[in-house]
């Protein structure tokens, strides 16, 4: 089975500072992979390189076999993303934003797809509201709706539930799990909420100083390293990565 995302020996440095240091990993269809690590570990840098908005220093990225560096448009047709730091333009309405991004992603039967997503993400009341007027939770739901527009084979989510209340966050997690289970795609997910990661992700990668330090099942990985839960393991990765490197 072809991986939806294949990252091979990826590296990015800014001058002397190495942000991502030769990482390799895959995301398979129907799989949710958590990309975890402390601030500055290289998660967002990795996501930006996968999205084609940041050129790697070396290494390759393939989305379903399409090379992002040499076949950018065709590769990105299969991907989409939502990130808390990339809100949609506030001077357009919910409907206008979804229509424009639907055109950019060449979505078939766009009007029906936009209506479906507006309904699915509970945005009907805001259809003709400018996005700048949405609450942070509503804006996050809109970003997720936009991320689902083209039924992506690779969905990149950078802290997708960070500004949602627990009830809506749970609904969103269910929708994302259903997307991975029923659709054709895989998901790369970053979050600092370790309980959420343990609940949602099939596999996690711990990044520290641009390297993948640990990889495994979020339910068993903490015990394998003598920790009670994922949060404790995260704290160890953040504070004492050398201990884990030696282990």
């Amino acid at each position, binding site marked *: 089975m072809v991986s939806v995302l294949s990252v091979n020996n990826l590296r990015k440095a*800014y001058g002397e500072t190495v942000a991502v240091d030769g990482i390799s990993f895959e995301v398979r269809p129907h799989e949710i992979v958590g990309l975890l690590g402390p601030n500055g570990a290289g998660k*967002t*840098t990795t996501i*930006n390189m996968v*999205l*084609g*908005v*940041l*050129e790697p220093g070396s290494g390759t990225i393939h989305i379903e076999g399409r090379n992002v560096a040499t076949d*950018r*448009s*065709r590769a*990105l*047709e299969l*991907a989409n*993303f939502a*990130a808390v*730091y*990339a809100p*949609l*333009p*506030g*001077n*357009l*309405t919910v409907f*206008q934003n979804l*229509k*424009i*991004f639907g*055109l*950019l*992603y*060449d979505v078939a039967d766009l009007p029906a797809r936009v209506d479906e997503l507006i309904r699915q993400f509970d945005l009907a009341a805001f259809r003709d509201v400018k996005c700048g007027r949405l609450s942070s939770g509503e804006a996050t739901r809109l970003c997720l709706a*936009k991320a689902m527009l083209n039924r992506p084979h690779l969905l990149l989510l950078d802290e997708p539930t960070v500004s949602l209340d627990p009830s809506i966050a749970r609904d969103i997690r269910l929708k994302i799990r259903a997307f991975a289970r029923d659709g054709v795609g895989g998901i790369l997910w970053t979050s600092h909420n370790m309980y959420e990661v343990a609940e949602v992700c099939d596999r996690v990668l711990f990044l520290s100083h641009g390297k993948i330090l640990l990889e495994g099942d979020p339910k068993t990985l903490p015990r394998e390293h003598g920790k009670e839960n994922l949060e404790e393991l995260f704290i160890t990765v953040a504070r004492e990565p050398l201990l884990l490197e030696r282990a």
Partner: protein
Amino acid sequence: MRFHRTYAVVLRHFYLIRGSFSRVSPLFTWIAVDIVLWGLITKYLNTVAASGVNFIPRLLGAVLLWDFFIRVMQGVTMTFFEDVWSRNFLNIFSTPLSTGEYIGGLVLSSVATSAIGLVVMLILAAAVFGLSFAVLGALAVPFILVLFLSGIALGIVGCAVVLRLGPSAEWFIWPIPAFLSPFAGVFYPLSILPRWMRVFSYALPPSYVFEGLRAVVSGGVVSMRGLAAGGCLAVIYILLACRIFTWVYRKAVRSGLIARYSAESVS
């Protein structure tokens, strides 16, 4: 190239203009003010000049064409600035949209907005000051075309400058037409310029248009060779401008600028 992606860029700009008085009014307000101001100045000059020369087609016609050139340039840059102001680069450049499709969208948006400006100016100049473009005959087509292509080229370069230097660099872009106008000979023949200025004038496609305009209204012969040279230069500048934009964009992708674009992150 996929047209629907270019169309998305145009549609975004249409939505913004349709829903905003502050975006609609500049399409015609300033050019209307310019036409009225210069129309009155030319009427006054007609009454005091002893030569009997009609200044309306010379000066008001020149103002109208120069304003059209500015509108075309600003049509491109304004569409681009909307992405700058709404911090939309990460969203838009992580889609399959190519730089060619994006520039195509900027150009088509400019066609629409500059055409509105041109129509308003023509109506106002004809209705209030009796300026008829019929006097230019078929030459109006190459005149407009050369100015349009030049405005597009300058607009794309302006976008590249702002992409490279950051949002605050838009203040470099607004005065460019004013900086070029002395060299383009909008109001006077190039022959009165010092030699060093004329060197620059010959490199500016609009100079050939304004020389042609003066030749037509004074009953002289328009240099078709000069006009063709202006057209060729404008096409070359568009190709160069696209290369510059693409080069700046690639550099921005290499440095990570696209992903963290803001006034503070660039300098």
